[in-house]
C-alpha cells in the first residue's frame, strides 16, 4: 500500500476498462514522473469531457451542444435515418463516406440477459422523430450479432405499421477470402442477400448497364401465417429441413 494520494490514484486507474492493478501502478508512477503541465492538461481534458459532452437531443449521438454536428448540418439528407447501437458506430459509418443521411443512436441492443429490453433503448424517441413526413427510409445498422439482429427484428415489427421503407445492412462474405472457409451462417446470409449480377441474354445489342442494386426490404418476420413456420427465405426453409431436431417429447419420461 502506498500513501494516501498515490494509492487513491492507483485505485481510480484500476477501475478503468482493461487496466489491472499492476498496470494501474505503472501508470500512476508514470504520472508522478511526468511533466506537471502535461498531467494538468490530461486532468483538464477529463474534466472538460465530463462537463461539456452530452447527448444530442435529436439523435442521442455524443455532442457538445444541444444537437450534434450531423443533426445541425443542413446539407445532409434528412429523408434517410440510419439506426445504430452506439456513437462509435456513427463514427465507423462516417469514415466510409458512403452515407449522407442522419443517424439515430439507440444506446445499446436488446439483451434480456443483461437486463436491457426495448424500454431501455431510445426507441420511443425514434418513433416521435418519424412523425416527420420527410423521412422516407430507415436503415437498420445494428451489429450483425444475435442481439443486434433481435433489435432489428423488434424495430421492423414496431415500425412497419408506420409505412416507411425499412432496410437492413447487407451481410455476407468478406472481400479477399476463400469461400470454403466461410462459416455456415455467414454463407447462408450471403445467399439470402444475393443480388442480380446479370440477366438472361437481353434482345438489345448494346451492352446493358448493370441492374440497379436491389434494396430488399426486411420482411416483417415474427408473424408467420397459420401453419407456416418458416420465413420466406428459401435458404431458411432448406436449413430448417436439414436440421434433425430432437423433440422435446423425447425427454418426457425424465419428468415422470
Amino acid at each position, binding site marked *: 500500500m502506498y500513501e494516501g494520494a498515490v494509492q487513491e490514484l492507483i485505485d481510480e486507474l484500476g477501475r478503468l476498462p*482493461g487496466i489491472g492493478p499492476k498496470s494501474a501502478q505503472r501508470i500512476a508512477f508514470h504520472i508522478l514522473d511526468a511533466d506537471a503541465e502535461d498531467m494538468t492538461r490530461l486532468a483538464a481534458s477529463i474534466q472538460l469531457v465530463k462537463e461539456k459532452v452530452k447527448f444530442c437531443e435529436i439523435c442521442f449521438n455524443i455532442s457538445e451542444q444541444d444537437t450534434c454536428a450531423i443533426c445541425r448540418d443542413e446539407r445532409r439528407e434528412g429523408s434517410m435515418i440510419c439506426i445504430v447501437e452506439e456513437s462509435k458506430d456513427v463514427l465507423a459509418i462516417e469514415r466510409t463516406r458512403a452515407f449522407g443521411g442522419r443517424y439515430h443512436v439507440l444506446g445499446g441492443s*436488446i*439483451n*434480456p*440477459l*443483461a*437486463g436491457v*429490453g426495448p424500454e431501455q433503448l431510445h426507441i420511443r424517441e425514434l418513433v416521435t422523430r418519424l412523425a416527420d413526413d420527410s423521412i422516407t427510409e430507415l436503415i437498420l445498422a445494428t451489429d450483425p*450479432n*444475435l442481439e443486434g*439482429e*433481435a433489435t432489428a*427484428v*423488434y424495430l421492423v*415489427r414496431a415500425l412497419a405499421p408506420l409505412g416507411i421503407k425499412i432496410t437492413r445492412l447487407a451481410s455476407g462474405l*468478406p472481400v479477399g*477470402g476463400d469461400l470454403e*472457409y*466461410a*462459416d*455456415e*451462417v*455467414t454463407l*447462408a446470409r450471403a445467399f439470402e442477400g444475393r443480388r442480380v449480377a446479370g440477366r438472361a441474354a437481353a434482345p438489345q445489342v448494346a451492352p446493358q448497364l448493370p441492374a440497379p442494386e436491389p434494396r430488399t426490404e426486411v420482411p416483417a*418476420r*415474427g408473424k*408467420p401465417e397459420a401453419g407456416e*413456420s418458416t*420465413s420466406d427465405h428459401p435458404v*431458411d426453409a432448406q*436449413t*430448417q429441413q436439414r*436440421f434433425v*431436431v*430432437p*423433440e*422435446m*417429447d*423425447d*425427454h*418426457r419420461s*425424465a*419428468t*415422470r
Partner: protein
Amino acid sequence: MSRSGFASKSYRTRGIVLRTHKLGEADRIITLLTPNGIVRAVAKGVRRTTSRLGATLEPFMEVEAQLVMGRNLDIVSQAQLRHAYGQLLVADYPSYTVANAMVEIAEKLLEADSDSTLRQYRLLHGALALLSKLAVEPGAVLDSYILRALSIAGWAPSFTSCVRCGKPGPHEALHVQLGGVVCADCRPSGSLSPHPVTIQYLQALLEGDWDAVALAGPRARKQAAEIVANYLQWHLERAVKSLRHVERS
C-alpha cells in the same frame, strides 16, 4: 499420455452457447453448456468482422468445439456449428426473449447442481429446437421448460395428487411453496384456487402434451404463467432478469 503437452491439454466437446460477455478489445467469454457441465472459455478475436468463429459462437447455437485448457478460462481453438438455433430464434422476437430466459434459468440451475447436467442439456436442446420450429406458442415452451428443468433439479411439482398426503386428485387448491395441488384436508393457508382448466394445463405443460397445451385459452395460460414464475422464484431464490422481458402473446 500424449507426448505433446499441448495436445494433452486440449479437448473436444459439444455444447450450447448460453451467453457471451465482451472481453478486452475483440474477444468474448463464451459460457458453454456441455453434457459434462458449464464451461467458460475465451474466444479470441470473435468480435472482428473477419472472424470465422463469430457467427458460430453466438447464443443458443449448438456447437462442436475444440477447447484448450487454460489457467483460469479455457480457450476456444475451433468450433463447428451443429444446429444454428440462434439464427432461427432471432427471427421471431417472442421466441428470442423466451430463449434468453431459458438459458438464464439453465445457467442458474446448473451453478447449484451439477449432477443432472446431461439431462438438463438434453432438455434445453429439445426446448430450443422446439422453439425454433415456431410450432408451439413460445410462452408455453418456456413454462413447460421451467417446470421440467425444476423437475430434473429435484423439485418436481405435482398437479394430480396432493403434495402432502398423496391423495389422488383432481384437487382444486394449489400451493406454490409446497409444489403443487393440495387436497381439501391438507389445504394450508395461502393456497391459491386457480381454475380447474389451469391445473389441467399445468399438467399438460409438465408432461409436454402439446396437443392439450394448444387447446388452453388465454386466461389459463396467464394464470399458469404466474404460478410457474412464482414456483421458479421460490426454488431459485434469485431473480431471473430476462423473465421480465419475455413477450407473451
